[in-house]
Structures are given as structure tokens and as C-alpha cells.
């Protein structure tokens, strides 16, 4: 096989694997941002977290559109805030690992 074609095909495999791994990390991040609290399911986002203490209402509508009464809003804020921070930092760290890995299929998988 022509060396130029071989190199191109190897690089294409690398690009595909990189894309796949980034997608898997993204899915894991989305999952890690989900918090189960008082029987409800909530997704921690910057916007939602900042709104928790700002609005004077103890009822929150969760991901499944079920209204949930949260009696300790401060604890709810802390739990969501921690989940969001941990998930985002983990996503960043794992992404950096694949970016800085050897630029080969095996290099990404070995991370």
C-alpha cells in the first residue's frame, strides 16, 4: 500500500476513535450532572444552580415534570453545586488525557 494512503487511513482511524471517546466522555458528563434528590431527578446546570436560592419557592419541577418540595434549599444547592463541579472537572481532566495522549488509536485507548 502507498505509504501516503496508509498514513491517511491510520489518521482517519485515530480521528474516529477520538470522536468516539469524546462522545463517551460527554455522555458520562451528562450522567454525572444528574442528581436524585427528595425522590426527584434534577440536572445540575449553571443556570439552575444559580436560580435555586434566588427564587423564593420551595417547589421544583424535576426532569420528569414532577413537582418536588425541597425543604432544605441550601442543602439542595450544595448537592447540585458539588455534582456540577465534580462532573465538569472530571470531564475536563478526562478530555485533557485523550488530547495529550499519543496521537494513535492505541494511545487513546490506553488512557
Amino acid at each position: 500500500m502507498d505509504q501516503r494512503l496508509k498514513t491517511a487511513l491510520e489518521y482517519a482511524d485515530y480521528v474516529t476513535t477520538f470522536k468516539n471517546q469524546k462522545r463517551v466522555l460527554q455522555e458520562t458528563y451528562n450522567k454525572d450532572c444528574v442528581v436524585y434528590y427528595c425522590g426527584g431527578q434534577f440536572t445540575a446546570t449553571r443556570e439552575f444552580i444559580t436560580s435555586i436560592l434566588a427564587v423564593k419557592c420551595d417547589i421544583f419541577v424535576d426532569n420528569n415534570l414532577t413537582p418536588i418540595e425541597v425543604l432544605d434549599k441550601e442543602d439542595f444547592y450544595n448537592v447540585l453545586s458539588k455534582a456540577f463541579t465534580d462532573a465538569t472537572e472530571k470531564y475536563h481532566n478526562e478530555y485533557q488525557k485523550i488530547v495529550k495522549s499519543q496521537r494513535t488509536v492505541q494511545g487513546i485507548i490506553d488512557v
Partner: protein
Amino acid sequence: MSKGILVHAFNNEDINYVKQASMVAERVKKYLDLPTSVITDCNIEDDGTFEHIINLDTPQNYTQKMYNNGNVGKHLTFKNNARALSYDLTPYEYTLMLDTDIIICDNSYKYCFEQNNPLLMYKDAYHLGQNLDYRQFNKISDSSIDFYWATCVYFAKCKQNKIFFDLIKHIEENWKHYRMVYQIVQQTFRNDFAFSIAVHILNGHAKGDIVGKMPSKLYYTIDKDILHKINNDELTFIIDNNPIKTKQMTVHAMNKYSLEELL
């Protein structure tokens, strides 16, 4: 208030479902800290892996199914007729029924037991590869109703769920009729279809919200994909000739041959 996991393990010519069920039980203990019970027609030695071993000797109406291992396939006996009995046979008040080819790598499922909906199922599932058309599992047939996965079902003992599981038994007994009504091409009885039809009927022959959403997403690989490596919570698959590695992500790995090789 008892709660636990229920698995069905009916071995066939090639596949040792009991071995897979043991893997599920070990992972359930590690990640969910819950007991597991098994419904089986095999003689299983009670070594403490399962909390209850429920022997089911009732004559079954077995079918044949194609089992793929990558690009190689084989028709084997498929004993899938006991799911409808799960409600009657479970020893738990709150049960999460799982397929034996689900590789648990995180604690998402424990949240089933911390919410109030008595019936949870997955409606959507996501293939880990990049080229598969997700829509093949959207409906049970081209012009029919929403698809629900019987792979992973959480149910509480209550009147509604008794009606639900009795209805599934009825659908199974009258499968030829329901297959025609719901325009299902495949002749073999499939639990996913029976559960989906039951959901549709209980919702008043319409879309509805009688079934809640399972926590997290259902990720799967098909039996043409290869499970290459299991390292605690890290799984490596070969999908379309490309490796995909997951970490702390529970996956329904349908290639039972490659799963068994790694157990």
C-alpha cells in the same frame, strides 16, 4: 420493605446465562449494595451469590433465535417465556428486573428505589457506536406503537403492576393475535414487544405516562459488536472495527459469546 434485583437465567446449547447472572449479582452487590435473586431451570449450587434461587420447572414454550458473535451467527434455543411471571415470583416488594447481559459499572439503578413511581422502564436506548440508526428501536413496527425495553424493568408490588403483568401473560398466550394487531413482522415472541403492547393498552390504547423513566440512559452494543475487555468499571468494545472504551457507564452488551469469554 424488601428490595432487590431479579434475573432470569435459562441456559441453552451454547450460552451459560447462569454464569452471566452470577456476574450481575456480584456487580449489583458492589455498585448497588442490594441482593439478587435468580429464576432458573438449572440446578444452581447455593454458594451465597444469590439470595433466592427460584426454580421454574413449568414447561416452557421455547423458540429459536439467532445469536451473533461479531459476524458469525447461530440459531439457538431461546427460553424467554418466564418474564411475565416475574411479578408473581419475585421475593421482593420492590424489584429491579435485569437482563443477564447488563454490565453494571455505576450506581444509577439504586435511584429506582428512591422515587415514587411504581413502574419504570427505558423507552430510549443509545448505541455506543457511531453508525447505527437509533430509530430501529423507536417503534415496535413501522406503523405501530412506542418501543419499551423489557431489558430493565423496575416494579413495585401494587394493584397496577399486578394488572400489568397479568396483561403481559394474556398477550403472550394470544401472541399470534397481538402480532397481527400491532403489525409485528417478526414471528418469534419477544418480551420487549409484549411489554410495549401492555404499556400501550394500559395507557388507554394511546401514548401516556403510566411508565416512568428509568434513571440514567440505557447504553447498548448489539451482538455484532465485540466486548473486548472488562476491567472493573472500564469496558472496551470493538464497534465497526473501532475501539470504544467506557468508564463508569452501565452497558447492555448483547454479544453473549464475547461476554461469556471474559467472565
